[in-house]
């Protein structure tokens, strides 16, 4: 049985993230949400402290952390602001394809300069006509001599307007479906690459999201990751790695909601006593606490499995799906606990609901997570 206590090393990482989250992120969360401001100065500080590029080995200038260590950090950051956390960890998502599909030469060529200073990267898979249906993507990559020409449009891409590097998934042959999908590394400076305007989102408003259009963008063959047709596998294996930290992100939002609700319930008085003494609120808080604990432990278990070398698809899908649903529900109940005040933007809980919602949609919508869970599960009975 694993020991559930954190090692002193893990506590140091968590403490660093917590300190950064409480002192640098939390004070600006409401303002960035209200004005949809992208707080680059905060992201730069995160980079300076080593809180970005967590999954990149230290050989290339990253922090070289396993999934559980990443989860400890991500939960703390998300407790302060889900949106800022999404932008901080978007680099991990974007760089993972290079780690999984790149040659040692490519890893060194792309990752070392990227990690040596503040840089943002974007993972470009989703398209207007297909999010969950990633295998049906339409962005085309035509081979012309020593380079490919990319044409197509991606959408809902995190950090796109600010990124210096994109990892892009395109098809070399639409007739062959997902078997033709190929992965590429495309610097922002490439001619024909155009990020769009920042979207006006329901939540995660400190994070920046836009389309990325590719029009005759030339990508050298040397910048292709793996072989033609390996892209879909690279994308799916990438998501296997990054899915669990999203569970941690959702857990952080849920924990914040629980903290606010419990604190308020002890102080607010109605009918002559703190509302925490009313059974209706107690039951609510108890359900919220169960959801948060379960979300965290499912996330930790998935992370622990992956760190031991397991593929972890079932565990990470369960963790992401459960934790994101939990975050939404706990945030909703937190608003209810605050009553009328919870509905006011001046109080911090309504933002948590808007931020929680995205965790059910991105990095694999929960409907897809459930089909994955069912598939993995039934395999055990076949």
């Amino acid at each position, binding site marked *: 049985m694993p020991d559930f206590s954190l090692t002193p090393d893990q506590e140091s990482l968590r403490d660093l993230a917590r300190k950064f989250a409480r002192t640098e992120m939390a004070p600006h969360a409401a303002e960035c949400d209200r004005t949809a401001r992208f707080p680059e100065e905060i992201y730069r500080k995160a980079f300076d402290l080593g809180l970005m590029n967590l999954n990149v080995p230290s050989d290339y200038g990253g922090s070289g952390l396993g999934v559980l260590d990443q989860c400890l950090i991500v939960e703390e950051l998300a407790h302060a602001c889900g949106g800022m956390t999404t932008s901080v960890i978007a680099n991990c998502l974007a760089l993972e394809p290079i780690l999984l599909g790149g040659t040692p030469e490519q890893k060194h060529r792309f990752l070392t300069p990227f990690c040596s200073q503040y840089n943002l990267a974007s993972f470009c898979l989703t398209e207007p006509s297909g999010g969950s249906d990633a295998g049906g993507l339409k962005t085309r990559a035509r081979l012309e001599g020593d380079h490919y020409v990319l044409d197509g449009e991606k959408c809902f891409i995190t950090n796109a307007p600010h990124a210096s590097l994109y990892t892009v998934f395109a098809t070399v042959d639409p007739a062959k479906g997902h078997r033709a999908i190929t992965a590429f590394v495309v610097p922002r400076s490439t001619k024909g690459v155009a990020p769009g305007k920042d979207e006006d989102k329901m939540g995660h408003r400190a994070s920046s999201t836009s389309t990325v259009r590719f029009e005759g963008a030339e990508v050298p063959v040397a910048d292709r990751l793996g072989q033609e047709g390996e892209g879909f596998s690279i994308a799916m294996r990438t998501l296997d790695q990054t899915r669990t930290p999203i569970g941690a992100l959702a857990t952080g939002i849920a924990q914040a909601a629980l903290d606010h609700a419990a604190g308020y319930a002890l*102080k*607010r*008085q109605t009918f002559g006593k703190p509302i925490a003494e009313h059974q209706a609120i107690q039951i609510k808080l108890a359900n919220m606490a169960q959801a948060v604990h379960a979300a965290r432990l499912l996330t930790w278990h998935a992370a622990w499995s992956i760190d031991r070398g397991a593929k972890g698809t079932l565990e990470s899908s369960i963790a992401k799906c459960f934790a994101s649903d939990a975050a939404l529900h706990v945030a909703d109940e937190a608003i209810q606990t605050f009553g009328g005040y919870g509905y006011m933007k*001046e109080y911090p809980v309504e933002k948590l609901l808007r931020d929680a919602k995205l965790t059910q949609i991105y990095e694999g919508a929960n409907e897809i997570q459930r089909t994955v869970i069912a598939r993995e599960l039934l395999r055990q009975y076949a």
Partner: protein
Amino acid sequence: MTLTVLILGEATNGRLAGTSVEAIGVARALPGTTLVGFLAGSTARAAAAEFGRFGVARVYAVDDPDLDAAPLAARVPSLKAVVEKEAPSVVVVGGTTNGRELLARLAAAADLAVASGVTEVSDVAGGVRVRRPIFGGRATETRLLTGPRVGIATRPHAFPAAAESPTTCAVEPAPTADIPPARLAPKRIGVTATASTAGPGLTDATIVVSGGRGVRSPENFHIIEELAASLGAAVGASRAVTDAGWRPTSLQVGQTGRAVSPQLYIAVGISGAIQHIVGMISSRVIVAINSDASAPIFRVADYGIVGDLFQIVPALTAEIRRVRGA
């Protein structure tokens, strides 16, 4: 058997500091004691006689002007010689910056069990019991100091000044002691008296005076500011006041404003909505002044005055000014 208590004094311009008079009071309250004083510096002899005003019959004075601009470490050899000669069981000092530092060095030189910031002292079997605030005043500890010699640095103003009890005071020079040259190498090159211009910042202040809707108009808010000035306090406000634009939001104390935890919080004309309470609940002492006896603020305050703040607050300001001799 009488125990000897040595009181380390501080003097400026020939007058004994108020904290030293408090220390004398502590010494006198210990049963069956012989009191001895100690002073060092350029006005030592002149101030030494003041010890007699408060019932101390003997004082050692190190009347050396060079000590004023020298580190406190330079006083320790003489002080240690006094301790060796008089063998006091207890050494008391008013716990100012200087007092605390001098006692700390003496504690190492003469092996004392010491405590600082002390607010209560009692002589018990086996030693001296002291009480002192810790964790920024959020808790209190009681300790028993044992050993042949103990030392106490009082928390300034925690003890009343000793009552006058004039007695002839014999002033004698301290036994001579060599001062190691290293202790004379540092030099004080200037002193600037504290300029109290603007009041302290809200979150650092020892005392905060806040005004609420009861003040009725921005023109009236000056009575809050005058009360604060008389106390050397910071000014705060409730959300009603800042929302109405009577004062800037930087002064707002409360859930969506600043959280403060001063030694004393005076809430004037503030009803005590929970949003305000959470911003000041960890103040050590809370005083509420409000015309409404059922205002929720009285549930969390330590002391309350129900009345017209336009009469109470100016009277309070006047009384504080009178008492402080300002």
